[in-house]
């Protein structure tokens, strides 16, 4: 059997909160990611969805070692990324890239777009003609070659995001973490960027971790989907099983909350209305973290934490009373 490109096992990431109010200093811990495991094959896309505070962005940053993980292992091409030396990590970083949400903040306003795209090549000491490489990257993402001489302020949001993608592609990565890459774009522009991700994957065969809160975009682009709630994966599996036969009540509620852009179906379908907001991750509920908003919750859900279990429709979900 082929080994997966990326394997995340029992990933935990804690953040310390220092509250300096009052006389005594108190230290509190937020577990942003709590025991998360998944794998990603070559050429595949894993969508990670969840609401704010679910830990989806933190997972992405941990994969790239942009954050030190608290415990667990992340293996890339079979190599454990924990324990690597600075130099070894630098070599591996060539193969893992990230595209951020905000195309305005992620480009240096004082650098030409061409030098921004060439920067990873310079940092990694790649020999050869950078100008040519930049030109081919610009073409690859649907921009013109002479755009290299311009500055970020001369571009629209969608174009800047294409520049960010060109920069991520500069080192021919095997994995790109896309952290809400189209959320800041208008829908008519978003469609073009989503198509670009699909085309690039077909041509270059890299894998994506696609982090988003927009479930319809994830449905379009992902092969597999992980649904996160308060730092945990509550359901993970093939796109088809997750969207067509959700087994976790949270997945069901989340899918039902997304309004469908068709007034006739939107007004006739039944909806699950969740009560309240996502609880604070500083103090998550005992047992199942979703139980405070779940209409099926019983005492069992408060006392024992459900584990991820394989369901008849193929996906894994963590619920005592699956659908």
């Amino acid at each position, binding site marked *: 059997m082929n080994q997966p490109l990326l394997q995340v096992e029992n990933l935990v990431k804690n953040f310390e909160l220092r509250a300096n109010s009052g006389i005594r200093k108190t230290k509190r811990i937020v577990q942003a990611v709590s025991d998360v495991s998944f794998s990603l094959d070559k050429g595949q896309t894993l969508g990670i969805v969840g*609401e*704010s505070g679910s830990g989806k962005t933190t997972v992405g940053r941990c994969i790239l070692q942009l954050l030190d993980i608290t415990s667990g292992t992340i293996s890339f091409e079979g190599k454990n990324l924990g324990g690597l030396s600075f130099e070894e990590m630098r070599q591996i970083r060539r193969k893992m890239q990230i595209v951020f949400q905000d195309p305005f903040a992620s480009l240096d306003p004082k650098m030409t777009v061409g030098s921004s795209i060439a920067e990873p090549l310079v940092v990694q000491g790649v020999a050869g003609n950078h100008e040519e490489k930049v030109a081919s990257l610009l073409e690859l993402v649907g921009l013109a070659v002479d755009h290299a001489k311009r500055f970020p302020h001369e571009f*629209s949001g*969608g*174009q800047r995001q294409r520049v960010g993608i060109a920069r991520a592609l500069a080192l021919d990565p095997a994995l790109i973490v896309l952290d809400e890459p189209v959320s800041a774009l*208008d*829908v*008519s*522009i*978003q*469609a*073009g960027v*989503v*198509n670009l991700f*699909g085309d690039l994957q077909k041509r270059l065969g890299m894998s994506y971790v696609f982090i988003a*809160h927009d*479930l*319809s*975009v994830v*449905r*379009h682009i992902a092969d597999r989907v992980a649904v996160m709630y308060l730092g945990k994966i509550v359901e993970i599996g093939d796109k088809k099983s997750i969207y067509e036969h959700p087994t976790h009540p949270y997945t069901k*509620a*989340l899918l039902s*909350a*997304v*309004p*469908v*852009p*068709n*007034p*006739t179906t*939107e*007004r006739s379908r039944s*909806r699950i*209305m*969740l*009560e*309240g*907001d*996502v609880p604070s991750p500083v103090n998550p509920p005992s047992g199942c973290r979703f139980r405070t*908003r779940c209409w099926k919750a019983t005492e069992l859900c408060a006392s024992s934490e459900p584990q991820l279990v394989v369901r008849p429709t193929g996906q894994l979900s963590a619920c005592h009373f699956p659908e």
Partner: protein
Amino acid sequence: MMSELVLSIRDLRVTFDTPLGPLEAVRGVDLDVRAGEMVGVVGESGSGKSVTFLAAMGLLPHQAKVSGSVMINGQEMLGASNKVLRNMRGGLMSMIFQDPLSALNPVHRIGDQIVEMLKAHQPKMSDKDAAKRAVELLDIVGIPQAAERAHQYPHEFSGGMRQRVVIAIAIANNPKVLIADEPTTALDVTVQAQILEVIERVQKSFGTAVVLITHDLGVIARVADRVNVMYAGRNVEKGGVEALFDHPSHPYTRGLLASLPHEGIERLTPITGFPPNMLMPPPGCGFAPRCSHASDACLVSLPPLQTFGDLETACIRAEELVVKAGLS
């Protein structure tokens, strides 16, 4: 019988002076809102949807040049005195925004902020009655234990609860019109569903007309009765929500709907290009540079809204295109 007209905007134009020259953000918008209806205003960033209503509320900085007419409950608001505007804002018409935290004062209790709004418009109301009414309002917008929560500060509320508080303040004086500018954009989808329900409840139970400004076509499909599609500072299409989603006539509306991901399609269909620079808007149809159907005539003058079946469409080729689409 049509219900009474509570907000009527005619030929509204807004120009900002910028160092690079005049920027025409709104270029002749007409819009009617009747009592008790929910009107959706949809458009992408820079389409002028927010500026239209900031102008109607008299909330733009005085450097902005505003012309046209804004009638609220039969009274002209453009050029009205500060006193008239003060009575209108929060009295006849209220507005809520995307970010509920910046709309609330962090150092005052929630209850007091509602009382402040009540007494600004009903100075004769006693403190006791106002406090009681504040708790009632919090209850209406679905805040549990309203009496206790009224004594808390904004930071003690979650994002969704804060937006409920803002709605309570906005409806405190039973306004005729509530303008909601992207009220759920900063919220998670499960919380968005709750807030839309609160807004609908206010609309249905008090007969408040609601203008919902959003970029989310799904939200429009869920709650709006009528829809106005804006592009480059103009109304490009308007009509009933079912008609507009079922058979949009303007190429922009069609492009917008086609660019959304939906089941069973391999590739999305983006609209090519990007919106015009409003410092130098094209002389003709604002959408023409991105429109695959544009002809020479489209580039000459601004197309007016014309009745077209059950929609109003600002496209000189709408009829022709629909015939063509029907044949193919």
